[in-house]
């Protein structure tokens, strides 16, 4: 049993939330961790450390409705190159984002020039309302990077969308090339990360390519 105020449980929770954001997040959905209710850790010989978590999430755009979740996060032993295994079970339904997704999809598809933006939020924490879906999509995509690169000694958050460029495609997907700044809490480093996100209302977000930006300390 772990005290929720201690960091090991919180780090595992962040991984679970990142994973869930990737799976269920998108331009119309904002999921925040409201509370970490309970945490348990199991040390499995020759395998790794497994965390069992009870989380309370908030679907911010659904009037802040809370949703309960259980999650299991398994950090593999001694491995820095294998992503933790994550399983999340959401109790109940998340509000449908069909309308917002469709509207976003149509709006972007009808742009004459490919969308380009940077510094979201800006220095003062502002996000222009028209760019909020782009911001939320970045959060969903960052969930993938965070999940894939987390260890028990890291805690990542998306600090800022440094740059985003839409790339028009001949198929049905929307494509956005992002440069995200990830803040890693333990080292306090801000790490630029490049990624390509594909999105479609029916298939959700997929990170098709990503890499830590080279040339960074």
């Amino acid at each position, binding site marked *: 049993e772990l005290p929720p105020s*201690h960091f090991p449980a919180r780090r595992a929770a962040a991984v679970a939330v990142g994973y869930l954001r990737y799976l269920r997040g998108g331009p119309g959905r904002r999921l925040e961790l409201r509370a970490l209710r309970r945490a348990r850790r199991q040390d499995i010989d020759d395998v790794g450390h497994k965390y069992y978590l009870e989380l309370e999430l908030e679907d911010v755009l659904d009037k802040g409705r809370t949703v309960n979740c259980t999650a299991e996060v398994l950090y593999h032993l001694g491995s820095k190159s294998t992503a933790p295994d994550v399983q999340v079970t959401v109790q109940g339904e998340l509000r449908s984002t069909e309308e917002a997704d469709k509207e976003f999809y149509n709006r972007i598809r009808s742009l004459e020039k490919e969308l380009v933006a940077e510094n979201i939020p800006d*220095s*003062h*924490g*502002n996000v222009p309302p028209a760019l909020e879906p782009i911001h939320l999509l970045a959060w969903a995509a960052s969930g993938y990077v965070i999940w894939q690169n987390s260890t028990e000694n890291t805690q990542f958050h998306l*600090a800022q969308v440094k740059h985003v460029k839409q790339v028009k495609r001949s198929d049905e997907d929307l494509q956005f090339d992002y440069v995200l700044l990830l803040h890693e*809490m333990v080292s306090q480093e801000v790490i630029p990360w490049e990624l390509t996100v594909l999105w479609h209302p029916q298939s959700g977000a997929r990170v098709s390519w990503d890499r830590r930006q080279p040339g960074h*300390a």
Partner: protein
Amino acid sequence: MRLPVLLVALVAVATCTETFVGHQVLRVTPKSDEELQKVQELQALEHLQLDFWLAPRGLGFPIDIRVPFPSLQAVKAHLEASGVSYSIMIEDVQALVDEEQMEMLRSSRQLPLDTNTFNYQAYHTLDEIYNFMDMLVAENPNLVSKLEIGRSTEDRPLYVLKFSTGGTNRPAIWIDTGIHSREWVTQASGVWFAKKIVQDHANNEGVASILETMDIFLEIVTNPDGFAFTHSKNRLWRKTRSKHSGSICVGVDPNRNWDAGFGDAGASNNPCTETYHGPYPNSEPEVKSIVDFVKNHGNIKAFISIHSYSQLLLYPYGYTDTPVPNQQELHEVSAKAVAALSSLYGTKYKYGSIITTIYRASGATIDWTYNQGIKYSFTFELRDTGRYGFLLPAKQIIPTAEETWLALKVIMEHARDNMY
């Protein structure tokens, strides 16, 4: 018959929100009389609702036309069919208007006349904050004074505000904000705290009673070089701006540079990292100046160093597992402080020692101050928990400062009531 018309007119006046979403500004520079005539034809078509920013003057003079969204296709078709070339000067007029409005809000803080017209709900530059300090002192000369405790690496003054109702070397409380320059909500909160102290004193409420027997020292911009850098070059800069020989990288983490477990696990010896502890303890003038101040003063009873983000209230140690002797007391005070903080807007904080709650960290401020005998040494990590992180929207400045102040008061009152 007249009443509905009147109502409609009233509604139209009341909802005077004109929007320019999707409107574009096109520029045509007519090169022939035919082209000029084609544009003038457009002028006559009232239903298009064109707004000529630059009316037709003659050949070679640009004509700028704001075209509402519904008329765009028709106008462009008309021009293209006649072979009149145009360029799109403004792609979305509303976007520009919105941006401008934001700029105006930001620049409406141009040199406020006094601390009552100062905009606390906005982030400010170093000059603006230093100007604020001078105004506060000028307005309250019997309560507030400004001390220069040293100079930064880039030779900026390091200012501390002293709030005192008299006495000589009274037991004191120290609060610092902005030691990590990218944590903008902290300097902004520091500014708010300064004004709050003055207001409480004037109204004989809140901390007025504390000021009867104690002094308060407040260093708002503890790392001015870093702060200036976050405005000019890199919003996410954390460290100082010192250059120590042997490295091309700049800056030392001022919260790893203190002489408590210096250089142990929990800091980095690589100058290119964010937690670089520096070549030796107190190598940073920003840190040394506080060390000298604390030692010379000799009577500081509570020391609070404020950071963001994570919503945590922390007490020592960060460099060792060993609990501090009065761990139980600090834990109880923290519980009370956090409860007070939450009572205002429901903001949830966790609390505990640095090493158990956030991570191992060596050379941290409050570990040193604690070892100097300052029993009530705390660090705050203010809002939020990662949603905006360092880029906390300005509209959260005042709520953050207000709730944090309630927690600070709990700590200050505890120090006053448990004098040692």
